[in-house]
């Protein structure tokens, strides 16, 4: 099985009117180099075999599919299947992309990687890959986030990475990306920017998607084997959108399969305190790509809000913007409270503590399951990407539910 099937790409990384490259000229040669390395690696059986072997012996792939029968009782009694990316090494889907890009870094002869991180998951995954492959690793993290996620800061340091707190702007993920871009502009000859999601300038949205497609490729075959059919609905949470595009992409040509992305509605889209970029944003350019953005009348980025640090981003991958505009995928906003309710149900019905990011997808499954049941389609099958485990969120969840630590 090939990890990714390169499709006929739109010209220069565009998805309809979205995507492209909006970056300083200084970065163009590095982006061209990366695009060429990615393309050649996609067609190089030796590279693919090396990555597959790493996934087998290090990541722990293929990840399993678990039927969540007791959880499904809360979702109208439809069949709920969970793609268990939480069981990957480092605890989330992020490792798929990180191992791929770390191999590409070595292929390009670079010895230093930089990464941005919000909750710390991508930073930990990057530090892990750097340790495994002997690369120098610097992680930019908003100062606010280093305080909220001190455990992950310690993990990165244990793995040998340098963590640089970012004090500019809102001191969160978007500013960590700005600072990583500034580092890259300065050190581009020796350094690869290991971007953690399907946003940013071309080739990142395409390349990161290709490294995560394995989620959907595996899940499609697993559901077919388990049920004899394709799922009726595929659901995933969307911040930047990497786990969602990974599981959606192999189903895009299956017209009967509904694809639903769940964005972070924070305290409610109507309050303005949210991170639901497609649901509540407008078209614009952020971090090198044209997509939906949370912005004001002057085109200044508006700070996002979510209980989930991993979804707390005012942009979204351009391919999601495109799938939304052509009507191939649906996007809904899930509030903090809805996500935490689903989080609690998953813990107590299945013995799985999900990441709070993932809990947004689970809340969506409860909504859609009940809608399907009410319209007489109780025999529907919903595949949910269980994108990460919730160990990192124990403190946030304990605070939310009033559990004393």
């Amino acid at each position, binding site marked *: 099985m090939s990890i990714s099937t390169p499709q006929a790409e739109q010209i220069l990384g565009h998805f309809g009117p979205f995507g492209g490259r909006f970056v300083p000229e200084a970065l163009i040669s590095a982006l061209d180099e990366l695009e060429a390395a990615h393309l050649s690696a996609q067609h190089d059986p030796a590279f693919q075999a090396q990555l597959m072997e790493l996934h087998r012996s290090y990541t722990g792939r293929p990840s399993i599919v678990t039927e969540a029968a007791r959880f499904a009782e809360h979702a109208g009694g439809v069949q709920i299947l969970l793609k268990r990316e939480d069981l990957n090494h480092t605890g989330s889907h992020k490792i798929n992309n990180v191992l791929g890009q770390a191999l590409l870094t070595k292929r390009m002869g670079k010895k230093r990687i930089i990464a941005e991180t919000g909750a710390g998951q991508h930073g930990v995954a990057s530090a892990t890959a750097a340790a495994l492959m002997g690369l120098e690793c610097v992680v930019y993290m908003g100062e606010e986030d280093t305080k909220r996620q001190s455990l992950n800061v310690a993990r990165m340091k244990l793995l040998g990475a340098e963590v640089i707190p970012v004090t500019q702007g809102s001191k969160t993920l978007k500013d960590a990306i700005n600072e990583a*871009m500034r580092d890259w502009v300065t050190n581009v000859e020796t350094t690869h920017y290991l971007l953690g999601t399907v946003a940013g300038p071309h080739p990142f949205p395409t390349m990161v998607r290709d490294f995560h497609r394995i989620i959907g490729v595996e899940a499609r075959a697993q559901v077919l084997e388990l049920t004899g059919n394709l799922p009726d609905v595929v659901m995933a949470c969307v911040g930047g959108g990497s786990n969602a595009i990974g599981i959606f992409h192999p189903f895009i040509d299956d017209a009967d399969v509904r694809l639903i992305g769940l964005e972070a509605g924070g305290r409610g889209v109507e309050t303005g305190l949210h991170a639901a970029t497609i649901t509540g944003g407008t078209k614009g350019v952020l971090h090198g790509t044209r997509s939906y953005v949370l912005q004001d009348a002057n085109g200044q980025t508006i700070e996002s809000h979510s209980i989930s640090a991993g979804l707390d981003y005012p942009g979204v991958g351009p391919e999601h913007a495109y799938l939304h505009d052509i009507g191939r995928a649906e996007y809904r906003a899930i509030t903090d409270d809805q996500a935490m309710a689903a989080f609690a149900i998953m813990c107590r019905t299945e013995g799985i503590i999900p990441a709070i990011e993932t809990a947004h997808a689970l809340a969506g499954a409860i909504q859609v399951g009940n809608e399907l049941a009410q319209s007489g389609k109780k025999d529907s099958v919903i595949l949910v990407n269980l994108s990460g485990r919730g160990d990192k969120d124990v403190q946030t969840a304990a605070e939310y539910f009033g559990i004393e630590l």
Partner: protein
Amino acid sequence: MSTALENLFEALKSQDRAALIGYIPSGFPSKEKCFEVIKAMVDGGVDAIEIGFPYSDPVMDGPIIQAAADISLKAGTGAADVFQTLAYATSLGVPAVVMTYWNPIERYGVAKFATELARNGGSGVITPDLTIEESTEWEQACAENGINRIYVVAPSTSEDRLPKVTSQCSGFVYAASLMGVTGTRTSVSSGAKDLVAKVRATTGTPVSVGLGVSTQNQAAEVAEYADGVIVGSAFIRLVLESADFATSLVEVRALAAELALGVRRKQA
């Protein structure tokens, strides 16, 4: 018809000297005080003004310009303020351009931005994160309004690509002298001279060098081979760090005068 900026470079050619271009973000340190800083720069001898449209996510800018942009954004600076600042600068008799990241233009309306820029006397726009591949609509808007499109080229720009970018530039080509973000530096990268030479091989359009110039000697050094010397962070730092605003105006004017001597030095 040529822009005021093009006329400036044409006039300086006969004087055999480089232009001194001063940068300041609109709305910094406040809308009115920004006008006073511009006045001090021009009084000191700056030949053209580059007005920044402050943006929330400026990936090409170092800490000094970020700090200035933050102050301006907190005061709510928007497109209308940028255009008023532009009109003020041109009223002093110097050419003025706007430097802005792409999203504020797209949000304002691409055609409308070019129209308003021209209406307020602006000569052109420097777009540090707009690639030529994404420029179709912008190219048309600038052509219709007779304003200059100024792109930034870098030492890493490939030989194949360089003529594609420079052929799209008018007014001047912005040569980013080193790989990095804006800010003052103790020495101007030797790469600047090489880059200017490479640019000249592709176009007859004037070439201005930015990133890192803060002293008279640096200005003189760059003026030896470039048509324009761009100074931003050094002026902004004076305003950020001075004990009081009146003092900083004196310092800005003095720095401008020193730099103006620098760009004229090779005649001596």
